[in-house]
């Protein structure tokens, strides 16, 4: 530790003390005309920023070092991926995980089961958004709108026509896809950052319409008494019903993982990634830009629509407040934390970000603060997320000795979009 660094950190701490002084220290109560001085916060900010500045500097140096290393040594595969690839580790881990997943609802209370079900909903949402953002490189900030479309499809179809969960589930997915195409079509010509802001605008418009068009959506008061999913007409106790929902959600998550994985490793998935990497080259290679973007948008929205139905059935009550921009931001931070383009990463990201605040109660207040910080920190230090995507390699027929090692994984660097 150099004396120079300590000096610099002192300066940084002083700067942050000064910067946060009015907001952290002074608390005014204009109604009763009282001012509260919270000097303790001053010390917290000072000490906190002093220490964080060391962490920051360390990470910065490491990042600079890594960049140099990477060009020399491209074969370096991170530990997590080596573990994931090694069957001696992978198979038992999968079995343990499977047993745990199955036993979970019988070991824990209904409350815990509900939390886990919620986390699984976010797994599916994260995987859906991952198609759009992680694979195709389209920053969709209005993703929650498709979730709302699914939830309201079930609530309204049930309210007006008495349609059941199982009937509406595919309808919700279909509606999500339809809205994806509908909203996607006009916006896909736009450049990356404009696309982000337009999707944000669309998301808000849909929420505001749901809030204000009382005759259609029952406004801010929402729709209550949405039935839970049925199971051949069996009546469940509340506890059994949350177990049932949990298993449904597990099935849904597995289904999503299966399909998204297949899509990712297909001709279409490759086109998405190419599009993310370089739009102009992609078109010059004969890929229809609009069509490819549209499939990504629609296939991403499908999952939100489907799981929206599930959400309505789980909570039995929905209103527009569940579908704000913050929700989109949460889903985005799941994808960012987990690793854009990585399925395992997104699953872990969703579980961490949804379960952690639930179990660490003291934490939950700071949830959104943390989400914001995660997005910044991940982008600055580890844009590829905690688990970077696995790039498939291929086997060649009849090439004998020339056949290259099969299914080797290559470290996938941060996704790149157009540099223009």
């Amino acid at each position, binding site marked *: 530790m150099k004396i120079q660094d300590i000096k610099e950190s002192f300066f940084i701490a002083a700067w942050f003390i000064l910067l946060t002084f009015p907001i952290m220290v002074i608390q005014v109560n204009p109604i009763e005309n009282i001012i509260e001085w919270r000097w303790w916060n001053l010390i917290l900010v000072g000490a906190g920023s002093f220490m964080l500045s060391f962490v920051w500097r360390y990470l910065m140096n490491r990042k600079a070092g890594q960049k140099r290393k990477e*060009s020399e040594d*491209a074969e370096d595969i991170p530990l997590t991926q080596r573990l994931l690839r090694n069957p001696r580790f992978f198979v038992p881990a999968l079995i343990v995980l499977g047993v745990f997943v199955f036993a979970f609802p019988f070991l824990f209370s209904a409350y815990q089961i509900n939390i886990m079900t919620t986390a699984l909903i976010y797994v599916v949402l994260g995987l859906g958004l991952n198609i759009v953002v992680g694979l195709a490189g389209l920053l969709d900030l209005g993703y929650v709108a498709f979730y709302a479309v699914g939830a309201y499809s079930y609530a309204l179809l049930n309210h007006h026509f008495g349609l059941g969960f199982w009937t509406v589930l595919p309808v919700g997915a279909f509606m999500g896809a339809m809205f994806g195409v509908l909203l996607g079509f006009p916006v896909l010509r736009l450049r990356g950052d404009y696309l982000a802001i337009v999707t944000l605008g669309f998301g808000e418009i849909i929420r505001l319409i749901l809030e204000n068009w009382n005759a259609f959506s029952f406004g801010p008061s929402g729709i209550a008494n949405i039935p839970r999913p049925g199971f051949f007409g069996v009546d469940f106790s509340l506890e059994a019903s949350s177990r049932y929902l949990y298993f449904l959600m597990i099935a849904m998550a597995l289904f999503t993982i299966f*399909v998204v994985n*297949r*899509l990712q490793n*297909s*001709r*279409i*998935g*490759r*086109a998405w*990634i*190419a599009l993310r*990497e*370089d739009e*102009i*080259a*992609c*078109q*010059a*290679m*004969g*890929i*229809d*830009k609009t069509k490819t973007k549209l*499939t990504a948008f629609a*296939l991403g929205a499908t999952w939100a629509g489907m799981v929206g139905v599930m959400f309505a059935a789980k909570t039995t009550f929905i209103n527009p407040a569940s579908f704000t921009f913050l929700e989109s931001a949460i889903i985005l931070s799941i994808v960012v934390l987990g690793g854009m383009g990585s399925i395992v990463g997104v699953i872990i990201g969703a579980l961490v970000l949804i379960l952690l605040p639930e179990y660490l109660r003291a934490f939950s207040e700071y949830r959104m603060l943390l989400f914001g910080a995660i997005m910044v920190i991940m982008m600055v230090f580890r844009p590829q997320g905690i688990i970077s995507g696995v*790039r498939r*390699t*291929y*086997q*060649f*027929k*009849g*090439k004998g000795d*020339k056949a*290259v*090692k099969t299914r*080797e994984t*290559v470290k*996938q*660097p*941060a*996704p*790149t979009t157009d540099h223009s």
Partner: protein
Amino acid sequence: MEPILEVKDLTMDFGGLRALDHLDLEIDRGEIAALIGPNGAGKTTFFNCITGIYIPTRGDVVISPPGKKRERINGLKPNHVTERGMARTFQNIRLFPSMTVLENVMIGRHCRTRSGIAGAVFRGPGTREEEQAVVDKSYEILEKMGLSRFVNELARNLPYGAQRRLEIARAMATEPFLILLDEPAAGMNPQETYELDQLILRIRDEEGISLLLIEHDMQLVMSLSDRIFVMDYGKKIAQGTPEEIKNNPVVIKAYLGEEIDA
């Protein structure tokens, strides 16, 4: 000789600036042609206009792919131009940097394959066969281009010369009848340039693909080309065999200050 690409009266205006000025050009089947001219003469704009990246202000671009109908293609989107058999590379290499070398070439096969969403999800025998064919064909192209030892490397980790060759490999994967190369030798050392020379000849002779290249390396241009077009200020100022071009006073004037080292 039958022309496979005919460009007539091609004009491109950017606001008040005329980047291409009533340009005429023809490429014959099996020909290696070169487009030369000082910097800013409009050579890359010409490529962009005939491949659908820009829509030309006026003029016609007509292709006659071997064994297919004659067709006017200006106004088509870039992907449709590629589908019809005209592929290109870029002056400032545009690979997919975080995809592997093989995957880069597999992207080139996209427009020659058909499997869709259902195929991807169910992965039936048809899709699997198609995927395997894509992999095999792509590998074959990489072998021809001398890139097979890089298959699973990320494109951005490749040496510069190999990146240029990968761009050509990717273009070949789209099964073109004509490849447009935008400064393929830029930044290459003499050895690499010589290899490129041989490679381009092989592409023409073994694959039967015609080529049109923009190039500043006059030695390469003179040794490769059957025909040379010279552009200056958006206009075609000369065309002919390397011998004719070398002795053309108009060309020498346009290049005044720039050496022709041939």
